[in-house]
């Protein structure tokens, strides 16, 4: 654990770590319990939600691995409005890849507080998202997230930026209709 603010006591660090873990678990629970509009409320109005594609690269060509957020095609490149639209679509009840509704389980782990400054708190975590639907369809996504969270009086934190690093090249599941 890092002393993120440079001035907190060990106890304050532990409390922050605990609060952030609880926030991550709350997000996962809301997504899995199909409470998507409540999850949406945990996102800030100026949200930047990004899942780049990943290339097969030569060792050392690290700058070429991820697609450019602003110049190339990404899996997700979203504002809060766009995510709200996706949630409206799922909640129509006629969005066929999510109707009948799936059984999602979001496992969140390796929650690390990286730093805190005027922009907010940087938190890294890992996910394993399991989707089971209809009789025998299984899709899985594994990866990690690099978040910037901001403290919030109502929801404790809001997600301001989220970079989602998926361990995948060609998208193998036919549809991605959950959030990370």
């Amino acid at each position, binding site marked *: 654990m890092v002393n993120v603010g440079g001035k907190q006591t060990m106890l304050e660090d532990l409390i922050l770590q605990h609060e952030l873990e609880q926030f991550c678990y709350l997000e996962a629970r809301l997504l899995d319990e199909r409470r998507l509009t409540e999850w949406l409320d945990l996102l800030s109005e100026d949200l930047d939600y990004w899942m780049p*594609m990943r*290339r*097969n*690269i*030569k060792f050392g*060509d690290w700058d*070429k691995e991820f*697609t450019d957020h*602003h*110049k*190339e*095609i*990404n*899996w*997700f*490149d*979203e504002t809060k409005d*766009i995510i709200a*639209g*996706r949630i*409206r*679509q*799922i*909640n*129509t009840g*006629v*969005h*066929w*890849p999510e109707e009948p509704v799936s059984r999602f389980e979001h496992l969140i782990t390796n929650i690390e507080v990286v730093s805190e400054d005027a922009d907010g708190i940087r938190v890294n975590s890992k996910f394993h998202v399991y989707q089971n639907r209809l009789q025998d369809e299984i899709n899985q996504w594994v990866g990690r997230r690099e978040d910037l969270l901001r403290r919030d009086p109502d929801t404790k934190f809001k997600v301001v930026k989220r970079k989602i690093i998926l361990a995948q*090249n*060609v*998208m*193998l*599941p*036919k*549809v*991605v*209709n959950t959030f990370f």
Partner: protein
Amino acid sequence: MANIVRAIGDRSIRAYIDPERGTVSRELYVNDDIFAQELEQIYQRCWLLLGHESQIPNPGDFVVTRMGTEEVLMVRDRKDHKIRAFLNSCRHRGMKVCRYDEGNTLVFTCPYHAWTYDTKGKLVGVGFGNYANAYTDTLPTGSEEWGLVEVGQICNFYGSIWATWDPKAPSFQDYLGPFAESLRHCLQSSDGEDAGLEFFTPFQRHRIPTNWKVPGFTSVTDLTHTAMTHRSAQAAGLHEDRGTGKETAKPFPQEKYAIGDHNLGHGGMCTFYDQLGVPDYANEWFEPGVDDYFRAQTERKKLLIADRIMPPHGWGGGHFAIFPAVMVDSWRIRYYHPHETGITERWSLFGVDKNAPDHVKDAVRHYAERFNGPVGFFESDDMENWNYVFPASQGATARKYDYFYRNGLGHGKYDDRLPGVVVNGSYTEEAHRARFSRWLAFMEAKSWDDLYPLNKSANHNIWPGVDGQASAKA
């Protein structure tokens, strides 16, 4: 050449389609023997889309692409700067010589025994080639013959790169026939400049657990699916036409049809324009300033082609398809690579005016990302339908019941504006049927000599009732 499949009940391949009833057997979609034969009869012969020249602008640039089930390297040579394409398989033991998605290189060196090829595909070195008696010489005897397997023909069509394995295939221009001008039009920038698009990198690539013909044949020109399949996007207000501020376009004389070229297999949902020039621009974008850009571009395009009628092309969410499985509309190209009978990989390329300002490129890119592919508002619904038709058609019972392709059968007409093409109501399955006419022709043909346009007198149309010129029945 593979033998003609004689599967269930010893049916010839022709017996899987019943033109009089307007039906197609599900075996075409679920039978492994037919799939294997398609790879030989169709994917070894047809012109297939590799990608776009803007993906490899510099000498030594390469990108890994596909032709059917196989990986192909599309390379710009370091010396003559020409684009060539090679099978990604070492001539020695067949290992992939390249496992990066893209890059810039001097040579491709196989990671197995170091057989090394230059950007013209020529074998230029092997591991231990200098040892006594190794390979008889410093390179395998006849090393000129042991270069990477090169495609039979390659064509740069206004920036898009196409190839065929068959050196005897007709030219790409002849393969396109009357659709050449339509495809050229779709590769123009919005002010009408030829090859005026660049394409965002990289390919959007994703798997669909279904047969390649489900999206490749059935869904590329399927106006009747929109209202039901895409109900959720409509209900949630996620309109494909991108903007809530969409204007109704000013009237411009035009007709919208489902069209199919039964000899070539191409077709789709196309607009025929009945007046010279270009319609007025109508607003359709959310993002500020984007409509202003496209309106100004449209005004330039009006000046450029004021004295011509635009070629027929896709309209408002419509598109046409180049046989076997490339779907084209203005600036968006999506195509299907078979992997297995029930597994297809879909690749998409999204174009934008080369010279567009950043805010326009951003808007187009966002549209591409948010509406298309496995994450897309619209296409995620398609994926579900395309997926589950496969298992639900595969069973011993299900495969005995043919698919209905009768919609609009017998109501098509030939049209002078696009010679050889059958024009029918926009909600008909004319384009689907044209695909099956061409499919059957390929599956039965011994070589390209049997096939239109090399066989000029061929009439591959198998369906009854086309008015005007003779049908295959005549």
